[in-house]
């Protein structure tokens, strides 16, 4: 075990894991996928989180099938109607139905969150696994790159980067992913550092496995828990960061809608009493972010052998 750096994280401490496995604990007998699933079912908060995510996904994707609204044509004669018959949550400054817009905006918020999480996870995992597996000078250099990015506040980097590009959906996804992969890369590297000396890696090497084969077939699957945890947090963070961008006027331009842009548009009317333009998108955005965090937290706990064994 490389004793050069303080091991802070919980699931990262290989000694603990070794001891538990030797005790014949659950770790040895149950696959990590099933372990995660079973602990999700046991954890009340995680179940609630999962339930919320399912409901919100259904609301955004099935909702428009049953609840038809005009989200294309600006109708100024319908602007800023308070909630009432025909418009359960009122209308906004362009005459769009707020409830219908929540569904539409939710689709792009969720899709963006997932897209960023996927891009982040793939790149961050490979980066971290490679650095940890290769070690030495290469690892040192690769980690200093991460440290450099981590030393600067995300918002500062984002403010600079957003000035560089036209904010299309793909650009925003790319930008958010470019700023989000650092965490997962560090975590995966930490895991790989402790895994690379294990027998199964040695065995694969002896059998002539290439570096990339060992990384992808053996090391990455063993880090799946850490990877899933950080992916769920990334979804939540991406949705939040997009909303901050919208607030700073650097988000996706209209007619695009997402919860963040609805929220920051609505804030302009907060002091005029048009509460239905602010609180519905705020509540659904916050609820979604909370739900993803609860799921991530529960999986994190389930991977922490010390917490579980008590």
């Amino acid at each position, binding site marked *: 075990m*490389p*004793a*050069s*750096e*303080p091991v*802070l994280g*919980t699931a990262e401490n290989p000694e603990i894991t070794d001891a538990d496995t030797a005790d014949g604990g659950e770790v040895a007998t149950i696959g990590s996928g099933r372990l995660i699933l079973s602990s999700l079912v046991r954890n*009340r*908060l995680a179940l609630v989180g999962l339930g919320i995510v399912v409901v919100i996904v259904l609301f955004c994707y099935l909702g428009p099938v049953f609840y038809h609204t005009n989200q294309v044509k600006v109708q100024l004669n319908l602007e800023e109607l308070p909630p009432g018959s025909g418009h359960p949550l009122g209308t906004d400054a362009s005459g769009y139905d707020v409830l219908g817009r929540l569904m539409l905006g939710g689709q792009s918020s969720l899709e963006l969150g997932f897209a960023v999480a996927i891009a982040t996870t793939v790149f961050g995992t490979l980066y971290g696994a490679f650095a940890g597996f290769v070690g030495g000078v290469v690892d*040192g250099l690769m980690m*200093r*790159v991460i*440290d*450099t*990015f*981590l*030393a*600067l*506040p*995300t*918002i*500062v*980097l984002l*403010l*600079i*980067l957003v*000035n*560089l590009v036209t904010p299309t959906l793909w650009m925003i996804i790319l930008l958010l992913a470019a700023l989000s992969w650092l965490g997962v890369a560090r975590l995966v590297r930490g895991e790989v550092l402790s895994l690379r000396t294990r027998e199964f890696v040695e065995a694969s090497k002896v059998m002539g496995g290439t570096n990339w084969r060992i990384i992808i077939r053996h090391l990455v699957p063993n880090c799946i828990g850490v990877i899933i945890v950080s992916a769920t947090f990334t979804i*939540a963070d991406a949705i*939040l960061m997009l*909303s*901050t961008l919208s*607030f*700073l006027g650097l988000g996706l331009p209209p007619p695009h809608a997402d919860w*963040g842009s609805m*929220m*920051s548009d609505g*804030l302009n009317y*907060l*002091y005029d009493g048009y509460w239905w333009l602010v609180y519905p998108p*705020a509540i659904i*955005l*916050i*609820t979604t*972010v*909370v739900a993803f*965090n*609860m799921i991530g*937290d529960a999986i994190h706990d389930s991977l*922490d052998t*010390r*917490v579980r*064994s*008590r």
Partner: protein
Amino acid sequence: MTTYLLRRVGQAIAVVIGVMVLTFIMIHMVPGSAARATLGLKATPGRIAIFNSVNGLNEPLIEQFFTYVKQVMHGNLGTSYSLQQPVSTLITQRLPIDLVLLGPSTVLSLLIALPLGIYQAARRNSIGDNTVTVVAFILYAMPDFFFAMLLIAIFSVQLNLLPSDVPEASSVAGILSDPKALVLPILTLTLLSIAGFSRYMRSSAIDALAQDYIRVAKAKGLSERLVLFRHVARNSMLPIITILGLAAPGIVAGAVIAEEIFNYPGMGLLFFKAATSQDFPVMLGSTLVVGVATVLGNLVADIAYSLLDPRIRYASE
């Protein structure tokens, strides 16, 4: 220990150089010229050419970078394009003002978050723990800007209790002239960072509770209060030192948004205004200062951690 220190300092230097390269590359990729941003859209090509040559913008990028590094070493961060003042003056003016905001809010949030985390760990999975967890999650999930605007809507607009704007001032005394105006910005940053800190403290205290020395303390018949405050608190607070180092950029990030909303004249507002007017020297300067401060903070945190926790011995392998 010495080997570790040397290596750690070496890493810090590498990261500082990385920060400089990174900000330099990014800022020089910004489209639209600095000359236009400063001189206005009606500037003649002649004036733009003069501006570019005076500010060294015609030199090759590599040379501009080395000139910049040389200047930084001499404490010269350039002159702001839009404010016509040395960047170092602007930053030294703003830093103490930022301490008035960041100091109290960080201390307050730690004072609240640490006991809260210990309570949660001691009563794990109780209704109290779950309630605090949910509240922390909600606070964490609130976009910074929304939370600040919500506080303004409640305390400034509805109740008319507190001002929503900090006085326009360029000194600490000026900021303190209206203490009531500081309440909302400090409250915003405090509540936002409680969420994160209390989560870390909870998991750190859970780790501590599982240790043998806690079992020994309990077996000796110590009251739960004593066990929690004397043994759990002290041991679980150690990792928070590292977290505090790592949280520095996040605190600054929160400050950018909060300062923008409350019009608080700190580094965050300085950076925000520079970013919207493409004021390169200010952007470079403040990003550099924040980056270097973070790197130093992490370095100090790591060293403090190794000194405070005798279990950690940095063997040189």
